[in-house]
C-alpha cells in the first residue's frame, strides 16, 4: 500500500517536472554564464583543445576524483560481496579455435586502441574512462576466448592502488605548489600538441590505468566464482 502511494507520488512529481522542463528550459538557447567562460578562456587557461576534458580534469577535477573513487568503491564492494562465493560447478567447454586465435591477434590491438583513447583525451573525444573500459573489454575478450586465463588479483590491486595514490599525490602537489588542490602545475604547452595541457594527459593516463584495472577486476570477480 505504502509502495503504491509512493509510486503515484513519484509520477505526479515527474509529470510536473516534464511540464516545467519542456516549457521553461528552452531548447537550444544559450543560457550559461560559467560555460561562456570555459569556452572563451578554457583553451588559454588549461592548454587543452577539448574543452570537455578541461572541464572534467581541471575545472571540475574534484568531481572526477570522486568519480574514480566511486568506481574503486564499486570494484572493492563487488570483491567483498562475492568473496567466498561458491556455485555449483558447470562443465567448462574450451572455446573454439577461431575465437581463441582471433582473440590472440585482436587483444593487443584493443589494448593499443584503449591506450590511444586515453592518451589523446585532451585533443580528441574520449579520455580516461572510455579508454580504461576499452582495455577492460580486451580482457573480457580474453576471458571469453581462454576460459582458464587468469589475471592475478595482486597485479590488479597494485595497479589500481598505485594509480589512485599517484592521482591524489598529483592533486596534493598542486596544493603545495599553487595553493590549490589539483591545480595545473605543469607548463601548458601549445594547444593541439600531444605534450600539452599540463597535468591533463598525466591524470587521464592514471585514470585509464585505474579504470582498466578496476573494470577488469569486476569482470574477473564475476567470472571466477563460476568454478
Amino acid at each position, binding site marked *: 500500500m505504502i509502495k503504491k502511494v509512493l509510486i503515484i507520488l513519484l509520477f505526479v512529481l515527474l509529470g510536473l517536472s516534464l511540464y516545467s522542463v519542456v516549457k521553461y528550459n528552452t531548447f537550444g538557447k544559450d543560457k550559461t554564464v560559467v560555460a561562456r567562460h570555459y569556452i572563451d578562456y578554457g583553451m588559454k587557461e588549461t592548454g587543452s583543445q577539448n574543452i*570537455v576534458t578541461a572541464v572534467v580534469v581541471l575545472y571540475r577535477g574534484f568531481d572526477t576524483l570522486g568519480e574514480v573513487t566511486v568506481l574503486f568503491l564499486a570494484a572493492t564492494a563487488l570483491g567483498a560481496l562475492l568473496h567466498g562465493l561458491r556455485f555449483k560447478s558447470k562443465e567448462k567447454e574450451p572455446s573454439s579455435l577461431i575465437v581463441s586465435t582471433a582473440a590472440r591477434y585482436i587483444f593487443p590491438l584493443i589494448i593499443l586502441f584503449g591506450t590511444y583513447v586515453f592518451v589523446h583525451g585532451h585533443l580528441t573525444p*574520449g579520455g580516461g*574512462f*572510455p579508454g580504461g*573500459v576499452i582495455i*577492460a573489454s580486451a580482457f573480457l575478450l580474453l576471458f571469453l576466448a581462454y576460459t582458464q586465463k587468469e589475471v592475478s588479483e595482486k597485479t590488479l590491486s597494485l595497479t589500481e592502488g598505485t594509480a589512485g595514490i599517484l592521482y591524489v599525490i598529483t592533486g596534493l602537489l598542486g596544493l603545495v605548489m599553487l595553493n590549490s588542490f589539483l591545480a595545473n602545475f605543469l607548463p601548458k604547452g601549445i594547444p593541439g600538441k600531444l605534450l600539452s595541457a599540463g597535468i591533463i594527459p598525466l591524470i587521464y593516463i592514471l585514470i585509464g590505468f585505474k579504470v582498466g584495472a578496476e573494470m577488469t577486476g569486476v569482470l574477473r570477480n*564475476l567470472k571466477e566464482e563460476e568454478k
Partner: protein
Amino acid sequence: MSSIIIIFVSILVLFMLGATIVAWVTKDLLIAVLSSGAISLIASILYLILQAPDVAITEAAIGAGLTTGIFVYVLKKTERFEK
C-alpha cells in the same frame, strides 16, 4: 536542426520507447538486458547528434558494452527467465 535530422531522431526515439516496452513486458531477462543495451546505444547516437562526442563514446563503451557484459555474466550465474 534540419528536418531530416528531426525525422531521424524521431525514428530513433520510437525505437528507444519500443525497447523500453520490450524490456518491460518480456519474460526473457536476456532480451530485457539486450533492449536496455539497445537503449544505451541509441542514446549514444542521440548524444552525437547533440554534439557530445565524449559522452557518446563513454556511453557506448560503458552503458552499451560493459554494462551488458556484466548483466550477461550475472544472468549466467542466476536464471534467465522471469517466473
